[in-house]
């Protein structure tokens, strides 16, 4: 199972990289979202899969799934949302100011200072 998830995570990350390298802002944002999914999956796998029960204390259970990656991923999910929201609004705003969503055209004049 772990091999499958790792490969899947790798594919997600690779595709995310492809999306992030493209010209359109929306695709870049989607790319970051996809990448966060890939990283979360990879992270979860590192804590070993399906080795125990849900990490909620229970008298009948002695084996729990690793809670630490879960806690870290939970944080990461929320941060990834903040990141997506911020980049989306940034894209929106720059589209309105510059009239383009093509990152190649967004390059401004170099600063004097």
């Amino acid at each position, binding site marked *: 199972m772990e091999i499958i998830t790792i490969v899947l995570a790798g594919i997600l990350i690779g595709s995310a990289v492809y999306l992030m390298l493209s010209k359109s802002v929306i695709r870049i944002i989607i790319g970051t979202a996809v990448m966060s999914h890939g990283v979360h999956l990879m992270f979860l796998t590192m804590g070993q899969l399906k080795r125990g029960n*849900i990490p*909620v*204390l229970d008298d009948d259970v002695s084996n729990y799934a690793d809670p630490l990656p879960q806690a870290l991923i*939970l944080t990461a999910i*929320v941060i990834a*949302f*903040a990141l997506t*929201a911020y980049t*989306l*609004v940034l894209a*929106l705003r720059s589209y*309105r100011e510059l*009239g383009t969503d093509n990152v190649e055209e967004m390059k401004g004049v170099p600063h004097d200072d």
Partner: protein
Amino acid sequence: MKHTLKKTETEKGQKQMNDVFLQFVSKVVFFIVIMFSFNLFFAGHYTPGGGFVGGLLAASALILLLIAYDKKTLQKMLPIDFRMVLTVGLLFAAGIPTLSFLFGTPFFTHQHTYIEVPVFGEIALHSAVLFDIGVFLTVAATSLFIIVLVGEAEN
């Protein structure tokens, strides 16, 4: 481009639809979701849930209302400034650990106690819940704040 955007917007404004069905359902669903979110939040220390999920669900319940009605109606229903909620949330999140610091224990040491309540039996009181309230408020307020901001742009 800007021009056409504005134009479509006014057209949309005229054709403001009154989707009675959606509005009715959303009212009902709103209460279910918000109750669920509180449940998740308060149960979070012992069963799955917690400040993040609770906050996000609360936000999505409000977003549902926002989609069914509009910003003005939402503000009439809930006359709260999200910036204020955000600030209060951050204050809670930063203040609770600091309080424990001020009372002589290391930063971020939580305190807990059990009290006996007539009907419910033994109840745990935990300062971590107060910290979680901060997380709840911040997450809920920020998510909603973002969507309201984007939604009202150019209006």
